[in-house]
């Protein structure tokens, strides 16, 4: 359902691919933007939307485990996010607009 509502853009597909590369792992803003090759001006509003729609959940690093810097915020895929973003990628595979993208996940 969400897959139909969400407008499929190249940055969305790239971010979805990066998130699904490690579906159970923690994702950090800067690393996500680097790996997905998406500018932070596009990435952060997208992450906010994913959080609002329950596709991602966020958390903060444990301050006890770090030193010399503030704790970073991480993002994790939810079950719903896994389903929805997986569905989006499945559809995008058949979309001629995204032919040039390297499909990294199975």
């Amino acid at each position, binding site marked *: 359902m969400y897959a139909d509502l969400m407008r499929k853009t190249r940055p969305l597909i790239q971010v979805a691919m990066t998130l699904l590369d490690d579906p159970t792992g923690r994702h950090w803003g*800067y690393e996500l933007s680097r790996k997905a090759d998406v500018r932070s*001006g596009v990435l*952060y509003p997208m992450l906010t939307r994913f959080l609002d729609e329950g596709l991602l959940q966020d958390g903060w690093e444990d301050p006890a485990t770090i030193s010399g810097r*503030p*704790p*970073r915020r991480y993002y994790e895929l939810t079950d719903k996010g896994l389903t929805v973003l997986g569905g989006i990628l499945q559809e995008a595979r058949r979309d001629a607009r995204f032919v040039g993208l390297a499909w990294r996940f199975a």
Partner: protein
Amino acid sequence: MTELLKALASPWNFLWVVLVFGLAPGFCLRLIVVAYPRNDPRRQELIAELYAVPRVQRPLWVAEQLEVALFEGLVHRVSAAIRSFTARRRAQNQTDDRDAELAVKVDHVYRAEELPGWMQREVHDHDRRYECDGHVFVDGRRGGLICKKCGR
């Protein structure tokens, strides 16, 4: 080559490098995140992310955050300000309606002479005042009167 080395060794150039790649990004980013509402987690997030960005890329990354802050943070702030203004206006209108309603119910209001002295002075200081048959009611929002029924 020698000129290049000399330029690199120059104290002014060194200061510029320290400023541009060391101090300025953190300072500017802290100014930029002020565009986000006070309780927005993105404030802390961006400051923390700065430490993950390689120093060479920091000035450009921070400049990019200005765009994000303007379009995400400022928009939130403006919409929050509009919402707050609308809510205040609505509350103001409701208070006016309630005051008008109370002014009509003069039997629920203290008589002016029944009030303690300080309260009488306050009553007379008020510009909004309703009187009817020895009863008086002033604008309750300013701490004046004083509905007998609810005791405020």
